[in-house]
């Protein structure tokens, strides 16, 4: 199979992040509203170590869910498995303009989702999330969100399919990895009618 090795290596990261989303979402639902990072900071663990989950805000979760919606995991890994959430965070940290439009888009998606579904985007199931984003991508009337989402789509798909693992999901390998294609003179001759 094209992706078995990739799948085994990267799925735990996906599970970790999505479990985090579930925990925070549950916390948010418990209070009846979404909370800020400081408000939802969990208690320190027994050894006083704050778990990573504490650093994820609802904004982070929406962003991660967006990535997981645009390139989800199916029989092969998705954007999160490939660590594109980290790449995007790094991009935002180093490029203020990127941070600006990504934050703007994530806020818009959050608000529009809450208005339409009465729950945060990251709480929707994959069918709902895909449908929601597809509707936004089809609606050119809202130029800013349409433009930002398309930009994110473009960035993510480029990163994904330019990566060795992403390209491998469609069976593409750069030439340096190529063995010669299978084939022999006899079958080629049969096809061409040569003797």
């Amino acid at each position: 199979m094209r992706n078995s090795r990739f799948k085994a290596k990267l799925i735990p990261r996906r599970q970790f992040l999505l479990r985090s989303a579930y925990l925070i979402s549950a916390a948010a639902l418990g209070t009846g509203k979404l909370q800020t990072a400081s408000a939802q900071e969990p208690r320190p663990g027994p050894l006083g170590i704050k778990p990573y989950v504490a650093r994820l805000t609802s904004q982070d979760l929406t962003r991660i869910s967006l990535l997981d919606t645009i390139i989800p995991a199916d029989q092969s890994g998705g954007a999160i498995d490939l660590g594109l959430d980290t790449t995007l965070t790094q991009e935002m940290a180093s490029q203020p303009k990127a941070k600006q439009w990504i934050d703007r888009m994530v806020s818009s998606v959050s608000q529009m989702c809450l208005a339409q579904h009465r729950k945060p985007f990251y709480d929707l199931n994959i069918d709902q999330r895909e449908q929601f984003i597809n509707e936004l991508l089809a609606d050119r009337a809202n130029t800013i969100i349409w433009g930002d989402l398309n930009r994110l789509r473009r960035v993510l798909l480029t990163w994904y399919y330019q990566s060795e693992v992403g390209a491998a999901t469609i069976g593409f390998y750069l030439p340096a990895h190529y063995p010669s294609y299978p084939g022999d003179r006899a079958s080629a001759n049969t096809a061409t009618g040569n003797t």
Partner: protein
Amino acid sequence: MDFDVLIIGSGAGGGVTALALCEQGFKVGLVERGPRFDPQKDYILNYPDWETRHDPLEQARINEQTINVDYRTKFEVDGQAHKRSELVYHRVYGVGGSTLHYQGEAHRFGDHTFNNKKLYGWGVDWPINYADLAPYYTTVEGLLGVAGDPNNPFKPKREAFPTPAHALSPRSRILAESAKSIGMTALPNTLALPSVSMDGRLPCQHSGGCDYGCVFGAKSSVDQAIIPRAERTGNLSLLTETRALKLTLDDAGEIESVVCSNAGGVQQITARAFVLAGGAVETPRLMLSAFSDNAPNGYANNTDQVGRYFMETVVAFLFVELEADVQVYRGPPIDSRIWDFYKSKDKQTSGFVMGAAGYLYPGIGPTSKALKGTSIGRAHKHKMRDSFGHDLRLFAVTEQEPMAQNRVTLSEFNDDDQMPKVDVHSEYSKRDMHTIKVMQAQLHKWAIATPTKKIGRFGNTSYRSSATHVGGTCRMGVDPKLSVVDAFGKVHGQTNCYITDASVLPTQGAGDSPSLTIQALALRTAEKIAADLKA
């Protein structure tokens, strides 16, 4: 004298001329405008972001300095606006010239293609015939390790190729079957992609990436197969990243020196003989921009022939999506070819050839494919898995009818080096347009016979330019009033100048690729140069 022979341009013709002369003991200077590339470092297919990465082999096209590209978008014929797209001329600045990005097609022109006028009543006959060129073809094929099947009924009888034909790629097997079902014959192409190791180089690895430079150094481009041999003689001085700006002429109108510029400054280089091999646009530009009292219309242009009979690639194509997942980009890029229409079937139609482009190019790469449309999510991933590697372009190529009004002339604009650019006037004749229609009909027939998911749209170069094989402009002939060089590539009326590039081609071989013919002619011209220098 700086050199025995100074050659301008290290492409198909210039490189082979240099080798032949170096092997005979002549000191040769080879001027190349571009750098010498390192296949393992410089070519973009070494990098995962190849689809969006700057391709150094496209430098010449992207930073076009020679051609006034706006010219064709607004030229007029008989007072009527006659809009065409800009001339997109694909060539490479670099040691090896356009062989760096060619697909390795190495065709001998069929014997009938030397006599279009006599046999079919159009174009012009060559001053030589196939038999004159055959021994030179054999020598060049040996240097390049050409792979092919000698039993091609559409070509002149011949000996075995230096290396055996490649097995057909999976895509070509499908296309060969469908061609057979409609009475056409797809045969293994003849390719300068050795199927066994040559000179210690890897044989072709079937990566489909010839277009971007062979990362394995397996393709027999001039930098790999020819230049190292010339260097081993100790007689070659390779002047890279050096631009030939101008020919300086003496009182008699003969070339005295060539003014060249590089990072070190401007210098005049002298030699006993000069070879122009910059291609069908650059060579006439150099000639037309050189003046003296005896050459008021440019060098060797008293009969106004320099720059005339420009010919570009005439191509029709049809996009299809194959049903089978055969990873179309795998295998030599154009590994099969249909020659059934190689000879004209009637008086209105030129001969043409057909094939399928399955090579890697950005339009079919993973990222380009992924970015098409607006879909996302699982549907997008499914579509990628389901359709990637199925997109193919069926194409047919013919030769443009040589016409005097199709020509390269000096433009009113100068380039960055303050040298005149050129305007390229190129219109298609009724014959060219009719042949395009016939080619499209045959492509459609082939597509319908092939198991496809989708048959896309037609395209052709009459409105969308994509010129890879340009020729003419300094054509070979017996009569100086109708040609620029004689049958040996020597410029009419001159004692020390020869041309060994595509500009000497009187016609373009019914759509076959010209590089092998340019190289065979170059070998023949090199013999003439050696004889003249020894006389």
